[in-house]
């Protein structure tokens, strides 16, 4: 049974200024379900006048509301939220060379050998929960709780484009060079497709995308 369909505490609507609402959900699955319903309603023309729909870890932000914000806030808790359909979207496959500088540390934290890290990581199906940090940077969920990791104590001043990294419950792939505190386990041989502002959509890993990493030869 989906948490989304459960009666009780389906969602909490918080104000975020005069033109935005932050909808807080009870868990990751409920967030995914609510986000999918918001997108469905917008595509069906049932949600006019909302400029940005921004999922977070446990929230969906509705921003740039060009109509009565209070009325929408009253309406949202009455929505029926069907459980999310996860089997429809195509899976994005990303080849990865698992030779990151933190591979040994990750293996130790997971209690496995360094050779097993790629097997576990590439054996997991991920989903982009939300984006942020940089254009096209997706926060991918899918690793079980016992494999969640802290950030590095000292962030790196430069992480190369294409680096595949872990932090908390998330996997991410840096679309361009930037500072970063995540644990680096590998790299995409070709990070180019991650972000292309002249393509529609610009981000390969937009919210809701399903992702699988495929181990590539060094």
């Amino acid at each position, binding site marked *: 049974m989906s948490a989304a369909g459960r009666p009780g505490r389906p969602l909490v609507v*918080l*104000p*975020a*200024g*005069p*033109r*935005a609402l*932050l909808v807080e959900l009870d868990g990751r699955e409920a967030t995914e379900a609510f986000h999918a319903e918001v997108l469905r309603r917008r595509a069906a023309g049932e949600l006019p006048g909302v*400029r*940005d*729909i*921004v*999922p*977070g*870890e*446990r*929230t*969906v*932000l509705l*921003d*740039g509301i060009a109509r009565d914000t209070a009325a929408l806030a009253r309406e949202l808790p009455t929505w029926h939220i069907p459980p999310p359909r996860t089997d429809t979207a195509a899976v994005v496959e990303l080849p990865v060379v698992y030779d990151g500088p933190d591979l040994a540390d990750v293996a130790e934290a997971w209690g496995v050998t360094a050779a097993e890290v790629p097997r576990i990581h590439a054996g997991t199906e991920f989903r982009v929960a*939300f*984006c*942020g*940090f*940089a*254009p*096209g*940077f997706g*926060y991918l969920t899918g690793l079980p709780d016992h494999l969640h990791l802290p950030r590095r104590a000292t962030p790196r001043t430069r992480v190369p484009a294409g680096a595949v990294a872990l932090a908390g419950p998330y996997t991410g792939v840096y679309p*361009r060079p930037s500072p970063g505190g995540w644990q680096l386990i590998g790299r995409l041989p070709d990070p180019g497709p991650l972000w292309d*502002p002249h393509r529609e*959509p*610009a*981000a390969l890993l*937009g*919210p809701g995308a399903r992702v699988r990493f495929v181990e590539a030869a060094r």
Partner: protein
Amino acid sequence: MTASVRPGAVEVVRAGALTTVQDEGRAGLAHLGVGRAGALDAPAAALANRLVGNPVTAAVLETTVTGCAVRPDRAVRVVVGGAPCRVTVDGRPVAWGAAVHVPAGAVLDAGPAVHGLRSYLAFAGGVAADPVLGSRSADLLSGLGPAPLSAGDVLPLGPPPQAGAPPADAVPWPGAPGGLVLPVHFGPRHTWFTPAALVTFTTRAYRVGAQSNRIGLRTEGPPLERARAGELPSEGMVLGAVQVPPDGRPVVFLNDHPTTGGYPVVGVVPEPALAAAAQAGAGTVVRFVRAGR
């Protein structure tokens, strides 16, 4: 029908401390991690555009504190508005806040801001830098759009508007206030702070911090005490969000703000009030007043 005019270009002679190309920014892409960007003092940019006969969507130059100088390769009508400054053409003083004619090859210099921070240079036809994701705005957080200007850069101009004379040649511009009063709607995370902190926030004076930039207006003043510890799960952030990092000093998110964040947002300053924040220099007194009750 006016004869067509070569669109032309402007060369940057003096880039100043930070001069960027800005328009109304990128909307509707926050879910991909792409922020709004756009002119910080949006009404000033829009007014400069209107006075030069452009649509308000045209791209302008936004200066920071020290102004900038450019040399057009064709005669062009220009308005320098926003933060008041001395404006010259080849060294001769010309009007600030009204359309001036700059001959081909002459140097238009927008001097340091007399008060306020950011002046806007609107050229008839607009700055025609290549748009990225529907906007010509530079986003300094994400690096999207044209890089901040350097001396020697050449920026293309768009075809000048066919409409002829602009609708008005002089209008009153709002003066920069001595102090900044920012209305703030509480939420979404004001309950993460103690009741005493919320009183502090809306009654005590803060000052604009020297680290302020296009990403956020930082403040110095009494820290806000949290009622609950820890980080939030990352959530979407709106323009004008007042985020409170671990040091307890409120940061007002401006146009280049991150799209998601993990520090609690105590309240939101409505967008129309942010233009004044864009002109408030370091040390300016800021008061937050509760709105929306």
